[in-house]
């Protein structure tokens, strides 16, 4: 099956920032993304967990975008304008997609 090279960007970010991030992505012309739940984790700012979380609703989510390699820089710039001062992690990996018209 024919595949096309792509980049997969995974951004773990606070729930309160989700709509700001996806708005920024849309502003940068990114049209495809998915949001996955995150149950808990640990990082420089300490650990947290949805269960037994001090304040419900301040959890984190993972926003995943699969994009054409040439759009990566635009996406990262847009994303960083939003997430810069916030906790979380941005990772990028290579992948291939099958239906190129899909993204």
């Amino acid at each position, binding site marked *: 099956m024919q595949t096309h090279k792509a980049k997969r960007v995974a951004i773990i970010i606070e729930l*309160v*920032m989700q*709509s700001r991030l996806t708005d920024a992505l849309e502003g940068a012309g990114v049209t495809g993304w998915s949001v996955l739940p995150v149950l808990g984790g640990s990082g420089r700012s*300490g*650990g947290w967990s949805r269960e037994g*979380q*001090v*304040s*419900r609703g*301040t959890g984190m989510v993972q926003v995943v975008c699969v994009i054409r390699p040439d759009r990566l820089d635009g996406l990262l710039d847009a994303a960083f304008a939003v997430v810069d001062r916030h906790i979380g992690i941005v990772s990028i990996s290579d992948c291939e997609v099958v239906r190129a018209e899909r993204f």
Partner: protein
Amino acid sequence: MDQILSLAATNLLSPIILSFALGVAAALARSDLNIPEAVAKGMSIYLLFAIGFKGGVSVADHGIDATLALSLIAGLILSAVLPLIAFALLQVMSGLSRLDAAAVAAHYGSISIVTFVAGTSVLESSGIASEGYMVAVAAAMEAPAILSALWLISRGGDARRMDKDLIREIMLNGSIVLLVGSFAIGWITGAEGLAKIEAFIVSPFQGVLCLFLLDMGLVAGRGLRGGSGVLKPGVLAFGVVMPLVGAALGLGTGLLLGLSTGGVALFMVLSASASYIAVPAAMRVALPEANPSIYLTLSLGVTFPFNLTLGLPIYVAVASALT
């Protein structure tokens, strides 16, 4: 004093406080007891809907008090002013940075609706009536404190844009909308509407409150376990002093407005309580550098239990003595 003690005893041995204590104990003992997030949120929606609706019905019954509008305005002002006092107090009592102090201050200007609910339930078991519109005052006091805190920060040179999105999020946050909305529904449908849904929003109320406070206890206990390290003695003391300061201001306001005993007590409760839902979310957006462990542990782990156990009976007793 006797009255305070006996009220405190009754309060401490009520199912709702014991449920809270059970939750705290289970969390501190690291039990895996745990109420699913969706269920906890469902219960809080139930409580907000019920308390708003009943408030609206009571306004429909007793008519609009002349002081309704004044109480709302007083609530708005109190909520905006309390953070300034809290901020000053924090700068004296604690070594917190301006940023952290402002974030904490925002919480104490805003309110905790569960503390309010627990307060109405203490009033009820003591047979003390209160103005139904105090629910609307509670809603009015949710947001102004956030603006004050951001103003404090920007005054310190660190300008924060309050973007339109954030203002909308604060003003239309779920709990305000639900509280005000169900208040309106109760007001419109009145006693007739209440009769239809009484078996849902009145009879099981105390029981749901027990389970909800069990969850609050679990969350507070887990917060204390994880976040107790960040609370230095000065900050801790603030968590107990500030509610008393707030209550005193609430008392003055309530007396000035000429509210009933119950109304004065609830004004004290609102002023004494600290937010742990709406304000933290706003702080994560507007002041992401402020440390959430500090304000959450303080508000939910220190002030909430204090108000629930000792604060409520004190406020009710003082209000009874002075009205």
